[in-house]
Structures are given as C-alpha cells and as structure tokens.
C-alpha cells in the first residue's frame, strides 16, 4: 500500500510518500490512520486530529470508514484551498 501526504501533513510527517505494509487488522481509513500514528512523533503529530484530514483512495475522495486494501494508493491531506 502506498500513502501520500500533502501540505502540512507532508511537512509534519516529514515524508511525501511511503510504501507501507499494515497488518490485516487494518481494514479502513480510520484504522490505517491509527496505525500510521505509531510510525513516529511526526506522524503522531500530523495525524492527531482526524477531523482536519481529508482522504482519497486511488484518487477518489473517501471517508474514514472507507475500506483500504493492499495495493491501494491512499492520500491524506487538509481541506483543499485552490482556485
């Protein structure tokens, strides 16, 4: 599974993207975020408030209860501010 981070999530985690191999107990976005928090203090800081985080799975918007699977591209980012 690949995880991408954008904007302040990228800055606080210190990575733009990483390949990960979460355990089979991680079945949805919320579970994945919980698991990612344990990767280090930067991740714990960036991912502490899920209400501030938006998610896309394979470049489609997703929710905290959306399922994730091996091979997925999961992107975590703040609300968008383009235009």
């Amino acid at each position, binding site marked *: 599974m690949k995880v991408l981070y*954008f*904007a302040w999530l*990228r800055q606080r985690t210190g990575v733009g993207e990483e390949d990960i191999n979460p355990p089979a107990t991680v079945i949805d976005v919320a579970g994945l975020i919980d698991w990612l928090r344990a990767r280090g203090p930067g991740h714990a800081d960036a991912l502490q408030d899920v209400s501030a985080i938006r998610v896309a799975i394979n*470049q489609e918007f997703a929710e905290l209860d959306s399922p994730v699977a091996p091979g997925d591209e999961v*992107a975590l*980012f703040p*609300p*968008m*501010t383009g*235009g």
Partner: protein
Amino acid sequence: MAIRVQRDDFDMGEELRRLTGDNHAIGGVASFVGLVRDMADNENIGAMTLEHYPGMTEKMLTEIEAEANRRWPLEASLIIHRYGRMEPGEQIVLVATASPHRLAALESCHFLIDWLKTKAPFWKLEESGGGGRWVDARDADDAAAQRWNAGPTSKKHAAE
C-alpha cells in the same frame, strides 16, 4: 473541453481567442481569472506556493469540466490551474466557458470556479513575515460550492 495544470503563466487573451477559434455558434464567452493577493487576514503576503496532487488534480478538473458540460449547453470550455511559487499579482487560475447564450456561459463559469475550489486537490502556502502558513479552507467556499448541488437553472432557459 480542455484542462491544463502547469507551472508557467498563461496569456489570457490568447487562451480566449483559441477557445472560440472559428466556432461561430458561440455567442458569449465568460471567464474568471484568480490572482495572488498581497494581503490575507491583515497580513502582508510576500508570495505563495501552490502544491497539488499530480494525477488526481487532472482527474478532478476533468470531472468538474464534464459536469459543467452536462449541465449547460457549452460549445467550449477551458480550465488552466498553475502550481509552484507565485508573486502577488500573478495569475493562478483561468476558467472560461463559451456558449450560444450568455446565461449558460456566465453560470457555468461561476459553477466551475466554485466547485474547483473545494474539489480540486490544491493547497496554498503563504509566505509572510514569520515564514510559511498553510491557508485554511473557508466555510464560505464550501457554501458557495454547495449552492450548485441543487442543479442548474439555465439549461432549460437556454433551450427555450
């Protein structure tokens, strides 16, 4: 229909001329250009950097443009969105729509910029005195985008 995501600036006049080309079914062109401001929340901004999600950005802009073409009878449409570092006064985004009639052109242009702001994966980092600050999303932008969820009003009018 066309979308472009690019670092470079664009020439608005040239883009609008190319959009209409020789299509004389077009009776009106509407456009919106977003610019970098030098103030935000009463703070001076030196410059801003736009980050985006390559791949998903193009996908979302294509979907938003297709939705505009479903809702309004458009002869042509164009979205250009820049990324990278920009100084105050620089052009960030161009949305342009062309239709036989003005209402469809004006409404679809408004729709495109409202939806783009909340659905296209771009993030602004402002440079101010104390360093960089990620711009917060505004509730007003969500409200503006949601206004269009009820559907279009002009397709019917345009056909009458």
